């Protein structure tokens, strides 16, 4: 079962991004991987961020975690990331470190890269509990055991002393979720957590996340390229393309009245298992490289509706309803 979906953003969001930008230096030139992103996530809300590779969705999450690699990467001046009202941009590394895990945690597509291969999983979870909640060794171990139960790990007690390689992909992702929950975060950033899993295992992990959301009052930013997964788990959706949010709205609105030509095209290009899709329409061309981003709308070179204005001038965000926004010059003309 799912919690009740709330299309509206609360006045007091857990996370608020304003004009967020992330840039990378390539051959001594800075290029924007994330450009002018405005987003909110309400308490206990699941926001799905959907986009193709290079759309900037993972970079947005890494920026929130303060994990943009220094040197060749940076958060653009003027960006704002507010977590429960507190500004994160410009915080010192020590303060960020305290925040990560305590109030916001992240899980990834491939848990194996995030787990320590030579440490028993029970210890890895307990370490996280000790570090962030100051429990002693035996209390931390008991808490680790409870967390493994909470993520529905079968035979949790026996599996405490297993190493990560002894777990299947789905069970490893459960271990990752247990580590993320160890610090009782308010916000979980989940970056394609089920992409590498088989569909029946994906269903189990999605079900777990949706149950946990209710049990521990967790807001989730769920990053995925899969519109089917979005339809399953999201309260609200943000569609990203070429580093920008092109459309946001309640999940029903995004699927029933998609307003941006990219969202519409994406839905028409997806082969579906529930119906004969003889009308499959590919999107011509490909995602632009970060080094060749158009000055206007990022989607203009592939957009069937593009006019001169679209390539020349970045569209402004317009609201079709109080909670449905779109960044497109022509959104009213083809609805």
């Amino acid at each position: 079962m799912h919690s009740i979906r709330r299309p509206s953003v609360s006045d007091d969001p857990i996370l608020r991004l304003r004009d967020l930008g992330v840039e990378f230096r390539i051959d001594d030139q800075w290029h924007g991987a994330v450009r002018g992103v405005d987003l909110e996530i309400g308490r206990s809300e699941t926001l799905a961020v959907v986009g193709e590779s290079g759309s900037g969705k993972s970079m947005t999450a890494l920026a929130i975690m303060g994990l943009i690699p220094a040197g060749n990467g940076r958060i653009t001046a003027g960006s704002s990331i507010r977590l429960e009202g507190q500004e994160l941009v410009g915080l010192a590394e020590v303060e960020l470190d305290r925040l990560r895990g305590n109030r916001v945690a992240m899980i990834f597509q491939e848990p194996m890269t995030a787990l320590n291969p030579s440490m028993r999983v029970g210890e890895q979870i307990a370490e996280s509990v000790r570090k962030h909640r100051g429990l002693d060794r035996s209390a931390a171990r008991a808490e680790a055991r409870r967390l493994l139960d909470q993520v529905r790990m079968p035979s949790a007690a026996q599996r405490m002393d297993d190493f990560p390689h002894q777990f299947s992909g789905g069970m490893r992702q459960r271990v990752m979720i247990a580590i993320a929950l160890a610090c009782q975060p308010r916000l979980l950033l989940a970056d394609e957590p089920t992409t590498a899993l088989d569909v029946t295992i994906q269903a189990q992990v999605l079900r777990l996340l949706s149950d946990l959301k209710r049990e521990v009052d967790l807001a989730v930013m769920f990053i995925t390229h899969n519109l089917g997964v979005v339809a399953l788990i999201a309260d609200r959706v943000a569609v990203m393309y070429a580093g920008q949010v092109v459309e946001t709205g309640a999940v029903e609105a995004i699927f029933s009245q998609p307003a941006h030509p990219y969202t519409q095209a994406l839905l028409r290009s997806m082969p579906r298992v529930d119906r004969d899709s003889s009308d499959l329409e590919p999107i011509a061309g490909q995602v632009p490289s970060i080094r060749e981003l158009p000055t206007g709308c990022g989607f203009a070179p592939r957009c069937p509706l593009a006019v001169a204005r679209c390539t020349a001038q970045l569209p402004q965000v317009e609201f079709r309803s109080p909670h449905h926004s779109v960044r497109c010059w022509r959104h009213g003309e083809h609805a």
Partner: protein
Amino acid sequence: MLEVDDLRKTFPVGGGLFRRPARLHAVAGVSLSLDHQRSLGLVGESGCGKSTLARCIMRLIEPDSGQIRITGRDFLKMRGSALSEARRELQIVFQDPYGSLNPRRTIGQTLAEPLRVHGLATDAELAQRVEAALAEVGLPTDAMQRYPHEFSGGQRQRVGIARALILNPGILVADEPVSALDVSVQAQILKLLEGLRERRGLSLLLVSHDLGVVRHVCDRVVVMYLGRVVEEGPVASIFDDPMHPYTRVLRAASPVPDPTARFRLPNIEGEIPSALNPPPGCAFHPRCPSAMPKCSIEQPPPVSVGGARRVACFLYSK
């Protein structure tokens, strides 16, 4: 066009000087047939044996036993020139278009290679054939002089398809051809495959974990679980009305881009067991909500259930 009968393949796992290796039953007696100019989908989750089966059909891996007939002739018994001719008839497109292209060769060299190996074109004809193949998959002629790294994933997959088609095969095997591609590019490649199949009258065996892709491209589908076929039939009827409990679970777990159809996420117990030690009887019985006592003892034989469908489950055998 292509008939597979009781194909089996096991792999040795582990073992040592004094210890016999265990046997992993990757393909445990699979039969299927692909009709002329038709397309057959092979679906299942990781470890179900679908890729091993595709590779056995190509004889990239030699199966342990069973039969493969191509246009009626016994493929596994072929040697020499008959084998080489049959191989021309049967070509494969892989999932990873980067890993399957030689990075040090130009696209032109890669595409000319099969023609040279089979001695099918004079030097004069080579360039022409390569050019035609590139045009057919929607790549510009100047791609000939370029290297794989200069292309996007979708374009590389076009090269992979051109390489498979350059020998004019009658049967194309495609192993997860769009899984590595972005959503917006997937549809381009699917459209291309569809168009080629119609234009060239190809028979297509498509291996995929994505039920949506199979429904879109294929006429019929074979559902595999732990090395065996559990159900087969026309795509629309299998996916709209799955009969085998595993197909039902697989279908219910496949996400659909429609929040109003938001189902209760199916509660599927357990994970796919190891093919090293498959459960006795029906391999799905430990996870099956409808399992009966005999399911753990006997292996259900495939039975016809009408509508050109077959299902291997005791719920349907009288």
